[in-house]
């Protein structure tokens, strides 16, 4: 008989608290706008815009200390659906999704849609096939779930080890994107900003663990979304007199189609297996915006969409978040909210790139051979390179850095500088949400499953929480060191991490719920095969042996993982009655959360002993 009652557990003042936070943030931005007009120095404005919100997040994170495992690892199971969905969407997208994707949309238009479709599809899959069952099981980490489901410490350890790889890749990607935005904002070096981010993350998350992550993460997500929506809404009002950029960029897009044809932007017809995603260097507009399959072929579009769907659905940094809701019904609803927030943000990102293309195309149409002041400003900032030598300007004379498109829009529109600083601060916030989610999930895996994985009974409360905190500090530092030592394109790291998760974890975790016959050997085989084949495919792609780079590695990895599970399960003895009963229990939403029941029985056993 479950004891959780939604009305009793969820804090009714959440809306008030986040309303206060949003007001503080909006007040800060308005104050800085006023100060900018009053002539306060640019340096002060930039530093306040960087450090002010960081202090707010750290304040929220430090205001929720924890000393119970259910609070530290699952936020007390008190997070309502909307906030969980907000956290899921922003952790899936991260700063990389917002910044790199606005550049990718700008450069290749329609062909960037597979990430959007894959993301919303991933949340649909997670909501229908995975999340409610994991919430019913209720463990704090994915390897704990796999270990208990198959009653096998080997599965627990193997999954912990293998899942650490994509999580570290994504952590490094987010930290480097966050450090890039912070160093642009403050003017200091990337390494120094990486240290600042690491200290900020430790200060924010270490006190309350997942509880801090959730609430300060919601604040960070609100900040990131505001920083994304507000400048482009202002631009939308300026250009189309209506503030909803996601909907109003339609007529703009049709006008753009005509202008692109007039300016000679090529229609490229790619072969089915092309996959040309722009990297971080400066590049000219590659093809017409709405023309499909110019840089990405139709077959690779579908494969990449499906891999991203599987990768997002089984993300080991997103799945633990679904256990924080008060119940299974709330979990299903939270995935709905995640789809809403993710879709809305991605549509905004594509709107940003359309407005940017519109500005560039107006420039070419109106200015002939000279460039206006905003373009000169972009050139001075290093965002754009112009080639003036070939006579009259065309769209292809401009080479823009992929990761600078988001920050270029407020400058191109002539907005006050504070809007650009706000956009950069929003990028830092988005990086902190995603990096925080990954770091905390990985630290919990290290503490619970690697160090504590020797026994099914968890450590006593205090050492358990302190171990998790120390692991968090270690993981954050490790992620920062990785990001600094091996600087790779964050978007590529994100693709690798999605491909690895899709191949390694997705088949195993889906079949663990939906196929009763699956055994522990099946799990181990699935994890190992999926991971191995994905890694080999990615390496082969990097060495140009096989053209399946990035998310296309899922084409081989997911079937390999599934085959591994199926063949190994069929070849080994079937599951015991206990395990079958466990699976039947996972499939029913009602009743006590399985992990909570285990912990309750453990506490009773320990009480009987003393």
């Amino acid at each position: 008989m479950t004891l959780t009652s939604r009305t009793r557990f969820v804090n009714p003042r959440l809306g008030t608290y986040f309303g206060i936070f949003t007001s503080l943030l909006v007040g800060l931005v308005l104050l800085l706008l006023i100060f900018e007009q009053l002539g306060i120095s640019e340096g002060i404005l930039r530093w306040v815009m960087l450090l002010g919100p960081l202090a707010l997040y750290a304040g929220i994170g430090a205001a929720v200390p924890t000393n119970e495992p259910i609070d530290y690892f699952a936020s007390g199971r008190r997070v309502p659906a909307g906030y969980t969905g907000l956290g899921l969407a922003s952790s899936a997208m991260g700063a990389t999704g917002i910044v790199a994707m606005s550049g990718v949309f700008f450069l290749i238009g329609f062909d960037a849609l597979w990430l959007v479709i894959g993301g919303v599809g991933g949340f649909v899959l997670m909501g229908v096939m995975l999340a409610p069952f994991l919430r019913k099981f209720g463990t704090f980490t994915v390897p704990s779930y796999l270990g208990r489901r198959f009653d096998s410490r080997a599965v627990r350890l193997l999954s912990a080890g293998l899942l650490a790889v994509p999580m570290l890749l994504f952590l490094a990607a987010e930290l480097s994107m966050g450090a890039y935005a912070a160093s642009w904002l403050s003017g200091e070096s990337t390494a120094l900003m990486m240290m600042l981010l690491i200290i900020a993350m430790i200060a924010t998350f270490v006190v309350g663990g997942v509880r801090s992550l959730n609430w300060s993460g919601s604040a960070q997500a609100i900040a990131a979304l505001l920083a994304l929506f507000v400048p482009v809404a202002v631009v939308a009002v300026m250009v189309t007199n209506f503030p909803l950029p996601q909907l109003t960029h339609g007529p703009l897009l049709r006008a753009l189609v005509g202008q692109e044809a007039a300016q000679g932007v090529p229609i490229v017809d790619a072969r089915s297996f092309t996959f040309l995603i722009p990297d971080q260097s400066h590049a000219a507009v590659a093809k017409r915006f709405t023309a499909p399959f110019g840089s990405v072929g139709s077959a690779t579009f579908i494969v990449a969409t499906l891999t991203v769907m599987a990768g997002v659905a089984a993300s080991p940094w997103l799945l633990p978040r679904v256990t924080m809701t008060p119940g299974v019904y709330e979990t299903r609803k939270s995935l709905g909210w995640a789809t809403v927030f993710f879709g809305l943000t991605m549509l905004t990102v594509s709107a940003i790139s359309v407005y940017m293309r519109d500005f560039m195309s107006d420039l070419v149409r109106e200015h002939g051979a000279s460039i206006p002041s905003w373009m000169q400003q972009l050139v001075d900032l290093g965002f754009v390179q112009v080639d003036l030598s070939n006579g009259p300007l065309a769209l292809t004379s401009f080479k823009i850095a992929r990761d600078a498109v988001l920050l270029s829009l407020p400058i191109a529109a002539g907005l006050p500088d504070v809007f650009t600083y706000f956009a950069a601060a929003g990028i830092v916030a988005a990086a902190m949400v995603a990096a925080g989610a990954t770091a905390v999930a990985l630290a919990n895996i290290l503490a619970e499953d690697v160090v504590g994985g020797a026994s099914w009974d968890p450590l006593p409360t205090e050492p358990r929480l302190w171990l998790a905190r120390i692991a968090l500090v270690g993981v954050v530092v490790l992620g920062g060191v990785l990001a600094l030592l091996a600087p790779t394109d964050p978007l590529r790291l994100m693709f690798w991490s999605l491909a690895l998760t899709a191949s390694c974890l997705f088949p195993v975790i889906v079949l663990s719920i939906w196929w009763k016959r699956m055994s522990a050997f099946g799990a181990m085989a699935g994890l190992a095969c999926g991971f191995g084949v994905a890694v080999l495919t990615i390496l082969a792609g990097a060495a140009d042996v096989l053209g399946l780079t990035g998310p296309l590695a899922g084409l081989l990895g997911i079937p390999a993982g599934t085959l591994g599970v199926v063949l190994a399960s069929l070849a080994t003895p079937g599951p015991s009655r206990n395990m079958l009963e466990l699976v039947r229990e996972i499939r029913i939403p009602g009743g006590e959360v399985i992990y909570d029941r285990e912990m309750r029985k453990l506490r009773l056993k320990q009480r009987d002993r003393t």
Partner: protein
Amino acid sequence: MMERKERKPYWKHTKWQMLASVVPFLILIIVLPLYAESLNTEKFLGFPLGYFLSAHGIVIVAIFTIASFVNRQDAIDHWHGAHEDT
């Protein structure tokens, strides 16, 4: 808590609901971008239709899919007595 004999019908019902939610969605996300080029000549709300369906359309379909899944699955849970006590 659900009766033992309801378990099999409950799971059958749930499995079919899962397929009914996921399969149409998968079909749409594969088919819509493939037809985008030919649909781009039409327009909707000012957007080229092919682009609108592949971007906004798929997002709306996804939200609709998961919203209807949440409602339907909750109804299934209540029908078989498998729902949570709140």
